[in-house]
Structures are given as structure tokens and as C-alpha cells.
């Protein structure tokens, strides 16, 4: 179906089902129960899942296939966001021109950075991209203030022209359909939210995922994997690696731009911190945590990190007291003193530990874990790790 083999079609249908049913899947606990803390089915977070999913899918096309580790992809995310907000300021709150422009701007930006950075490989490439991203970040704060509105961040003001607005809505919308509008469904004790913005992002994420599957299985994808394994042989086979890596870089830059444009479309403001190196590092973590070079890995990694960031960071002392209230006071306080360092503002500690554990025991990321579990259950010892990665194109 759609030019995919049977296994990929199955995977794609699985992803479609999960994203479509996400409002149910993310809210497994009744709204008033103590476990409601762990529900992730609110619009804001679900939007972030799919937007960062797009970001990570694109990053994986560069890093997972060619092995070029870019440490500056947040620059494209930020550029996309700024472009989108400018469209809101000048035209209207319709997100279509905003998203188109954000992809184009990020694409052009990545052509320039890629053209220069790809002259080097390995650590030098990483450092060059990092330097460019930090430079963009610093410039967005200072000299580019007329374009970026500096520290305040770029946002839409009442006196902005918005030439095409007319009587259109006052919030971001897709031809009249407002991104923030949410339909709440209450079934018994459970409550589920269906948000327009989430579904809009989800559709684009599915398109992005489909394109990445096609790239993985294409001759282009094969060449990118060849670059990762042996660039010397590739050059002596009559192939020029430079345009291949540049194309991969620009494609992943455009994915980042799309993610940035969507972020601004959900909440029409853009700040320079979106370009900072921590944001670039986050997408690297997502991809490695999920499994670089796998199709589903980056999505899993993005979901995993965003879930922890938003759920673990919300658990505070009073929540912990609620959980452990049944224990004797001394033990309760001791236990809470230990745990509180791992939750709330300390969630980075938990994330760091998990990341270390995964990289040490599952170098292939969560996807490797999933493959091992599946192999254990199917009892097939001959199927080794290569399964979960990319099926050899020679099938």
C-alpha cells in the first residue's frame, strides 16, 4: 500500500491508530483519582508529543542514516517559529501560509549552514553546527532584535497590520477552525479531550513519518546508510558524498522548520531560547533514546522525554505526601526527602539516570529493547538485533 512493503504498511497503520486514539490512550486514569497525575492527555502536551516527534523524525534522517551528528538543529526550529509568527503579524492568523514559510525559511537557512558545516565530518561537523546555532541564538537576542523582538520574544500585537485578517478569528486557525478549540468527552469518571490543534499536528506528523519511511527505503536512503558505514568506498565508487549529505541535512532542517512553525501555530509566539543548544541537545537525546536509525525510535524517544518533562516535573512535595500518607511520619519524611530529588524540578536527574541506563544496556535505544522483548516471546533466537533496525533492502 502507498508504495510500502507489508511490514512497513503494518507499522504505518499502527502509528496512525495510536495517534488517532491518543486522547484515550494518554488518559488511562479517571480524572479524580490519585493516578490522574500520570494522565498526559491534555491538548498542550499532546501537541508537544507530535511536534517534537516531527522534529526527531527529521533529525533521524540526518543522524540515523548518515551518522552526521548535528548539534545545531534547534536553529532551524527557531527560524521556523519566527517565520510563522511573522506571517501571523503580516497576513492573518491562518496557519497555512505560516507553516509553508517556516519550512521554506528553515530550508534556506539549512542550505547555508549545511554547505559550510558539511565540509568537515565527525566531531568537527558537530562543533560547527553547534557554533552556528549558538551564533543564531546570540544574534536573535541582540542585533536581530528588529526581526526577533529580542528578549521579549516575537508575538502578535493589536496594531500589527494583519492585511488578510478581515473578520477572521483572533486566534490561530486553519481556514476558520481554531487550533485551541477542544471537545471534551466525559465517560463515567473518565474525561477525554479532543483538540483541533493536536489533530492538525498529528496529520502533519503522519505525513512526515510516511515521507521518512519512503526515504529510508529509497536508493537515496541506501546511499545515506552507505555514507555512514564507509565514505571512502563511496567516493571510490564514483559517488559524491557531499550533495547526499547536504540533501539529508536540508531535509532534516525542513522537518525542524515544520516543527517550529507548528509550535508557533499552537501558541503564536517565538523566543530566542528555542534556538539554544539545550534545545538542540534535546532532539539528540530523543533520537538516541528511542533508537537512532530506526523508523519508530525517534517518535518513541520524543514521547518518552516530553512525558517525563511534563509529568515528573509536576510531582511536588504535597503530591508525595498524599501518596505516602499511610506510612509512619519518620519513614514518610525520609522517603519523601529521597524521592523529591528525582521529581519536580529534579526530573532532569531521573532523565539523566534513565538515559545512562539505556545507553549502557540498550545501545540501540528503546527500539532495541522492544525487539529483544519480542524475540524473547517469539522464542526465535536466530533473529538478532538487525530486525528492529532497517530490514535489508534486499528482501
Amino acid at each position, binding site marked *: 500500500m502507498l508504495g510500502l512493503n507489508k511490514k512497513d504498511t503494518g507499522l504505518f497503520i499502527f502509528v496512525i491508530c495510536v495517534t488517532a486514539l491518543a486522547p484515550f490512550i494518554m488518559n488511562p486514569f479517571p480524572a479524580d483519582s490519585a493516578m490522574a497525575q500520570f494522565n498526559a492527555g491534555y491538548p498542550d502536551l499532546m501537541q508537544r508529543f507530535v511536534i517534537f516527534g516531527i522534529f526527531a523524525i527529521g533529525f533521524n534522517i540526518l543522524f540515523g542514516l548518515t551518522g552526521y551528528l548535528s548539534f545545531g538543529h534547534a536553529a532551524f526550529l527557531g527560524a521556523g517559529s519566527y517565520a510563522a509568527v511573522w506571517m501571523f503579524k503580516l497576513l492573518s492568523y491562518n496557519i497555512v501560509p505560516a507553516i509553508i514559510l517556516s519550512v521554506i525559511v528553515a530550508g534556506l537557512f539549512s542550505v547555508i549552514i549545511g554547505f559550510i558545516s558539511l565540509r568537515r565530518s565527525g566531531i568537527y561537523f558537530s562543533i560547527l553546527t553547534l557554533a552556528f546555532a549558538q551564533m543564531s541564538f546570540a544574534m536573535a537576542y541582540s542585533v536581530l532584535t528588529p526581526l526577533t523582538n529580542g528578549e521579549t520574544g516575537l508575538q502578535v500585537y493589536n496594531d500589527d497590520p494583519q492585511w488578510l485578517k478581515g473578520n477572521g478569528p483572533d486566534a490561530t486557525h486553519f481556514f476558520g477552525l481554531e487550533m485551541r478549540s477542544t471537545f471534551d468527552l466525559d465517560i463515567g469518571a473518565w474525561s477525554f479531550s479532543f483538540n483541533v490543534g493536536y489533530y492538525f499536528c498529528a496529520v502533519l506528523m503522519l505525513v512526515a513519518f510516511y515521507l521518512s519511511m519512503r526515504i529510508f527505503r529509497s536508493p537515496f536512503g541506501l546511499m545515506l546508510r552507505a555514507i555512514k558505514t564507509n565514505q*571512502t568506498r563511496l567516493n571510490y*565508487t564514483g559517488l559524491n558524498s557531499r550533495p547526499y549529505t547536504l540533501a539529508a541535512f536540508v531535509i532534516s532542517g525542513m522537518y525542524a522548520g515544520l516543527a517550529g512553525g507548528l509550535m508557533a501555530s499552537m501558541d503564536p509566539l517565538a523566543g530566542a531560547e528555542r534556538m539554544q543548544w539545550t534545545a538542540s541537545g534535546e532532539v539528540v537525546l530523543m533520537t538516541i533514546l528511542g533508537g537512532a536509525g530506526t523508523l519508530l525510535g525517534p517518535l518513541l524517544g520524543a514521547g518518552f522525554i516530553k512525558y517525563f518533562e511534563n509529568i515528573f516535573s509536576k510531582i511536588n512535595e504535597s503530591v508525595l505526601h498524599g501518596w505516602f500518607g499511610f506510612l509512619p511520619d519518620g519513614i514518610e519524611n525520609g522517603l519523601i526527602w529521597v524521592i523529591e530529588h528525582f521529581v519536580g524540578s529534579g526530573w532532569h536527574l531521573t532523565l539523566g539516570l534513565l538515559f545512562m541506563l539505556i545507553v549502557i544496556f540498550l545501545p540501540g535505544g528503546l527500539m532495541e529493547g522492544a525487539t529483544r522483548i519480542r524475540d524473547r516471546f517469539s522464542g526465535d533466537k536466530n533473529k538478532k538485533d538487525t530486525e528492529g533496525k532497517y530490514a535489508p533492502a534486499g528482501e
Partner: protein
Amino acid sequence: MGILEIQNVNKSFGGLKALQNVNLNIEEGTIHAIIGPNGAGKSTLLNCFVGKLVPDTGTVTFDGHSLLGKKPHEINQIGVSRVFQTPEIFSDLSVFENVMIPCFAKRDGAFELNALSRVQGQTDIREKAEQMLIDVNMIDKRDMIASSMSRGDKRRLEMAMCLAQDPKLLLLDEPTAGMARADTNNTIELLAQIQDKRHITMGVIEHDMHVVFSLAQKISVLAQGTVIVEDLPENIKGHPKVQEAYLGTAH
């Protein structure tokens, strides 16, 4: 007139003169061996053919094209393929994918953004790659990951990858270095077969005299950066200059 002509090539690294006024002609359709003691400049010379090094002076002409200043992939696209001392293959990919890549390079040139078609749908490429694997007797290993094979098989695969491009000139840098005797003989057989079937011109750099004398139709002996003798194999064996280069002067 040879297919590869090297005239007055000089190359020095700092104070070391690696090549001095080298002249060499490789005739079309022959196997031409370049031998010489360690440090004679054999590998430097080869690197000047393939674009890895640029000679200080002199000309390198292949089939009417000057090779000076061309990049490795450009030189390959006009018909020069190279086998390395340690097999350079795509070790993380399957054997079949390894052979498909040069087939793509042959068909599409140095760059083609073929991002939305499917590898599985490329029937012409797949058939050619399959035929290539049958030719080198590796079809049963087609789905193996290349890194898991023996060194002899890796060499065989590398050869298949080079041949998939139908090169006009195949350069081999010590194709049997570090191989067991049986693997060496297999390689000799394979090269002889290729020469028989495809009449590809080959330039072989080799240490192993057994290999050189079983294959070469012409031999150039390199010592201290210059070609001291160029002759037919039967005249090389007893040549006094060659013995001098290898064993030192008799005092």
C-alpha cells in the same frame, strides 16, 4: 599508446622524494604488475592515479582524460576502479546492498536524489547486482551483513563491487596481502577469470611473487621512487637490476 600513461611524475613529501621521473604505460587489455621493495613508492604512485594525491610535476592521462586535480569519484566515473589493501566495503550493509550501490553509481552518476522511489522497485539494478554475485560465486551469501564475512569473501565482494561498474581499468593494491594460501590462490583464479571473460585492464601492486608471476603480462619494477626495469615476466626473474634492488648490491 597505453590506456593509462604516466609521464615524468615527481612527488615529494617534505625532503623525501617518493617518486622521481616515473614513466609508465599500461596497455589496454593487459595485467600490468608494479612490484618493488618496501618504500619504493608503489602506493604513492597508485594514489596519484586515483586522485588521492596530486603529483608535483608530470602528467597522468587515462583514456584521453588528464587525471590531475580530479576527485576520486570523478576519476571513478570515467572508468577507474580501485581495490584496497584492506577491503573497503560497506560493512553494516548486506552483501546484496553492497553490490547494488556501485550499480546505482554506474546508472545514475555521482549524485541522484532518488528519495521517493523504492530500492525494491529497481528491477534493472537488482538483476545486475544478482548477476554480479553469481559471477563471483557469492549468491548464497547475499543477505549476510558484510562485516560478518571472512577476509577472502570481503575481498571477493569488493572485487564484485568494482566489476559491477564495468571499469576500463581496475587497480588492485596488494589484493592478497595477509591472506591464507588457499585464499590467495582463489583470488588469483578469480582475477584470471575476470581477465578472461571481461578483458579488463588491470594494474596490480603486489608483494607476493607467486601472484605476480601467475598473473602479470608485464611487470614494472620500482625502486627508490623510479622505474628501474619494465619488461615481460620471463625477463624480470633473472634481471640483475631487480636482484640488486631486492637483495642489495653484491660487494
